[in-house]
């Protein structure tokens, strides 16, 4: 069957590798991917492990459905204690690496210790070698992958690697595969860098036997048909996530000039449609028919002629609206740079936007910025700052430390201008008009984030029957209210919690969030996941069992965070969400701020629905029911 991939525990300090079976009982309880990673992270780290020290572990995994017939089965998950936040470090990455890892015989890698010299892992058909990577150190992401393909004389190897930013321990460095696939958030590239681990290369010729081949083929075809029948998928096929910007900016949901506005005036230059001039086609992850990525060649500026992939909606914000730039070329150039050097597009853009607001307010001056004129809309300065952060040069060295540490160095009240939660900066979305989305970023286990629990469909004000179909008893019972107004505080705690479970299931199965209920209510979720698992693997898990597994893993992420010092105060929005109303946008978005009391009420409700106490700690009864009530939970 498809589920005989192993767990490998690799110690880079003593160069040992031990290979373990993953018992079916563990799979049923934690699925795989992010779900099982949460379990491994909790068990393989001690409280207070230095995120950049040898005792931190880096876990790399493919999902339960990785490589199988599941509409998109290429997603890889990576976890560690985050050097950015100190809490759960967790990021999901597309491309082709995860299936190749599984073809090579492994579903999860736990990597600990620190290599004495720069090294890479070569994982080939059941064997794991720790190899010398001195010759790769200093190479960028693209050079590293090309060099490894050449060295291993196989163009079909799949590589996860870090760029110079990861080597230099930029606290929001990424782990990359291909041109644009990034484990972007929470600084996992720095963890890899701290271990002297430049790359992980996988190649496998193993077969993944499908339990019911004909039925799985047919079901996958029908699922793909259904996905592609949505207008969202059709739009993504053409414009990728960049399409979101046109509508959100028109309404006033787009954070601009750090946090000074919620709409980029005259921002047409950033619209997805402009990609038509530079796009040479589309790219996709393993098995995916949505193919949301642009493949493009930069036409103008210092990087003219360069081939790159992406950019995403996040980069339109990071190097567009947040920094007040209106030139798509700036977005394209910076997207290329962060991918090449291996840095998180969102954190990079946020750091620059924050510095720009400080600069405009006179809190920092040219003396702080090495003479760089950090006014909003200075395209050249933005591109230069991206380079300096990646290289930790001058002021870039301070920004490379991430929001809280950088504010600690700058001082002068600069912390108040950060748009961060738990030490991680937010997407360029402005959640002041949308309480549900605000609760989502406040409570997400990895810090301010839009893909851990965002009820994206809430902003459509869907008809109630649609909300009922999605959120009521699907599959977990819910008797509370559902309200189809995005400005309401009622019933939103459940929507956030539901999405949290749904995205955890998606990340644990190793499929893509664009193929589930995120931006459309008509895409697959628990019922379909249950069927996919059965047809592919023969494992019978009811939708409710998948929901419970997601709950189990999410609870473990929460417990990990609590072990590292998380309190209710960390589930909190930046102060300006409460005190400064949005200055721009259509009537539904303008003049909005979050009501503090009602927000606290939502938070109480959310904790209650989770069976967490008022401080946000899972209750003993919940832990007992989920079977994770003992410590350690059980070491695999």
């Amino acid at each position, binding site marked *: 069957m498809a589920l005989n991939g192993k767990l490998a525990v690799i110690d880079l300090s003593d160069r040992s590798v031990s290979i373990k079976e993953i018992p079916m009982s563990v799979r049923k309880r934690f699925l795989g991917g992010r779900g099982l990673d949460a379990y491994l992270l909790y068990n393989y780290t001690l409280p207070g492990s230095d995120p950049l020290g040898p005792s931190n572990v880096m876990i790399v995994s493919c999902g339960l459905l990785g490589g199988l017939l599941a509409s998109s089965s290429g997603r890889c998950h990576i976890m560690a204690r985050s050097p950015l936040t100190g809490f759960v470090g967790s990021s999901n990455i597309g491309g082709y690496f995860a299936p190749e890892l599984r073809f090579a015989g492994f579903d999860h890698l736990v990597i600990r210790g620190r290599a004495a010299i720069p090294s890479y892992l070569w994982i080939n058909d059941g064997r794991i070698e720790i190899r010398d990577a001195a010759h790769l150190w200093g190479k960028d992401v693209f050079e590293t992958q090309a060099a490894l393909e050449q060295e291993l004389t196989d163009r079909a190897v799949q590589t996860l690697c870090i760029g110079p930013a990861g080597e230099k321990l930029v606290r929001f460095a990424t782990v990359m595969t291909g041109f644009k696939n990034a484990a972007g958030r929470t600084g996992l590239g720095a963890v890899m860098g701290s271990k002297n681990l430049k790359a992980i290369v996988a190649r496998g010729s193993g077969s993944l036997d499908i339990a019911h081949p004909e039925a799985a083929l047919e079901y996958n075809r029908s699922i793909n048909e259904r996905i592609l029948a949505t*207008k969202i998928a059709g739009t993504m096929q053409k414009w990728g996530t960049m399409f979101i910007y*046109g509508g959100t900016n028109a309404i006033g949901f787009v954070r601009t000039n750090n946090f000074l506005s919620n709409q980029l005036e005259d921002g047409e230059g950033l619209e997805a449609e402009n990609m038509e001039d530079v796009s040479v086609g589309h790219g996709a992850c393993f098995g995916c028919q949505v193919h949301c990525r642009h493949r493009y060649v930069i036409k103008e500026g210092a990087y003219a002629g360069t081939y790159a992939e992406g950019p995403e909606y996040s980069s339109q914000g990071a190097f567009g609206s947040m920094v007040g730039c209106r030139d798509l070329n700036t977005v394209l150039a910076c997207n290329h740079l962060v991918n090449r050097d291996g840095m998180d597009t969102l954190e990079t853009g946020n750091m620059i936007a924050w510095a720009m607001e400080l600069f405009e307010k006179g809190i920092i001056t040219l003396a702080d910025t090495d003479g760089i004129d950090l006014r909003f809309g200075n395209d050249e300065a933005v591109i230069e700052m991206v380079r300096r952060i990646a290289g930790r040069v001058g002021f870039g060295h301070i920004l490379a430390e991430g929001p809280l540490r950088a504010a600690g160095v700058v001082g002068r009240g600069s912390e108040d201008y950060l748009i961060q939660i738990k030490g991680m900066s937010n997407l360029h979305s402005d959640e002041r008009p949308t309480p549900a989305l605000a609760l989502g970023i406040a409570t997400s286990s990895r810090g301010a984030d839009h893909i851990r629990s965002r009820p994206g*469909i809430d902003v459509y004000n869907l008809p109630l029957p649609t909300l009922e179909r999605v959120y009521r008893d699907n599959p977990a019972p819910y008797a509370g209210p559902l309200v189809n107004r995005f400005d309401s505080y009622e019933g939103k705690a459940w929507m956030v919690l539901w999405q949290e479970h749904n995205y955890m299931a998606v990340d644990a199965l190793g499929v893509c969030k664009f193929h589930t209920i995120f931006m459309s209510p008509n895409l697959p979720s628990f019922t379909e996941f249950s069927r996919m698992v059965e047809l592919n693997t023969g494992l019978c898990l009811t939708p409710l069992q998948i929901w419970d597994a997601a709950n189990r893993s999410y609870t473990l992420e929460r417990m990990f965070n609590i072990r590292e010092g998380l309190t209710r105060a960390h589930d909190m929005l930046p102060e300006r969400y409460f005190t400064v109303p949005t200055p721009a946008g259509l009537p539904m978005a303008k003049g909005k701020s979050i009501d503090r009391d009602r927000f606290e009420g939502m938070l109480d409700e959310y904790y209650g629905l989770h069976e967490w106490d008022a401080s946000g700690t899972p209750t003993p009864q919940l832990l007992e029911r989920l079977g994770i009530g003992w410590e350690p939970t059980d070491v695999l």
Partner: protein
Amino acid sequence: MLGEEDTQPKERSREERDAEVRCLGCLGHFRPPSGADHADCPHCGASWRLTWLDAHSVKIRGPWKKS
């Protein structure tokens, strides 16, 4: 954002849905003339620039600025 997914109580065919946009101002649905680069919402009068994914499928690109 504000996709056309199930945003009307009545069932619509895929063709109807693709040919319609949803006004970002009043959230009402309307069908712009085929191939038009902009259109006014018949419900609230707001003007929108349009993008055609193909000959039959349209979405709002952004506000149309009246000069």
